[in-house]
């Protein structure tokens, strides 16, 4: 059985890739993709801890991940809708262009 910290390191790496993407890239959609990656990394942690927890039959971690996936889908939908309306208003999704306009 793979020991628990393999999954935790994997989740940490995934989280930092998402964070790096969100911080480094200019495009709003890529920032949102970065956020999705961070969310998924967190989900992975939950499932890893659920799998190795003595009270796994309580399904607590699993439930948390189900709700987190639901919320993430809602968040992605609203985030992308905002990006589209920003684009329609400012004609570009580059984040530095957005904050310069007073709109």
């Amino acid at each position, binding site marked *: *059985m*793979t020991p*628990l*910290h*393999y*999954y*935790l*390191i994997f989740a940490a*790496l*995934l*989280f*930092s890739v998402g*964070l*790096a*993407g*969100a*911080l*480094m*890239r200019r*495009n709003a*959609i*890529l920032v949102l*993709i*970065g956020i*999705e*990656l961070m969310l*998924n990394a967190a*989900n*992975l942690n939950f*499932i*890893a801890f659920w*799998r*190795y927890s003595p009270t*796994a*039959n309580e*399904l607590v971690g*699993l*439930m948390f*991940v*189900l709700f987190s*996936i*639901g*919320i*993430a*889908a*809602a968040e*992605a939908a609203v985030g*992308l*809708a*905002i*990006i*589209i*309306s920003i*684009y*329609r*208003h400012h*004609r*570009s*999704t580059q984040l530095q*262009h957005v904050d310069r306009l007073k709109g």
Partner: protein
Amino acid sequence: MRMLSDIPIAFLMIAAVTLVSAVCAMSLRNLVHCGLCLVLTFVGLAATYLHLSAEFVGFAQVLVYVGAVAILIVFTILLTRNAEVTLSPVSQSSLVGLGIAIAVCGSLVLPLVTSPSLRRLPAQSLAPDAQVQRIGEKLMAQYVIPLEALALVLTAAMIGAVVIAMRDDPERNDPSPSPQNQKDTGSVSNSPAGTALNSSSSTSSSQRP
């Protein structure tokens, strides 16, 4: 030396594929390729969940993310005319971001590797029975309030997304063209498909300098 069968080959392969596609999703120049690499990341994560014998979550992950969120992201890329825009190289201010990310990664991984407590935790050998039946019972019994709240959140998000992204038809509600439309030089045609059509046909990069 660790025995060959002791190293978790399957897990390492899945993790490698997922991490590589995650890095690609963040760094590729063509945005649609980023979206497709993101899909590969989601599939890799679903494989990890299956590896952790959480079947239901793995399939839910594929259904929700690969089936819906990925299509949403790809549609947004097309609707905001980013399909064939080559993205700018890494600028100076973003190196600070990279620094922060590496710091965070270090702060996460270091305690993991050094802390003695994790190695002592006995690995849960038998897989907990995450039967769909039990998940259903728990959802309906213990977690029924969060479930209803989630339903409300999803409905609100759906309606919110539609309201935000809906195009207010200038002709229909107020005949006098609103200032925002006069300023538009190339007025974007109405239907989203039309916009996507323009995006694939317009070769010009984004109109900003």
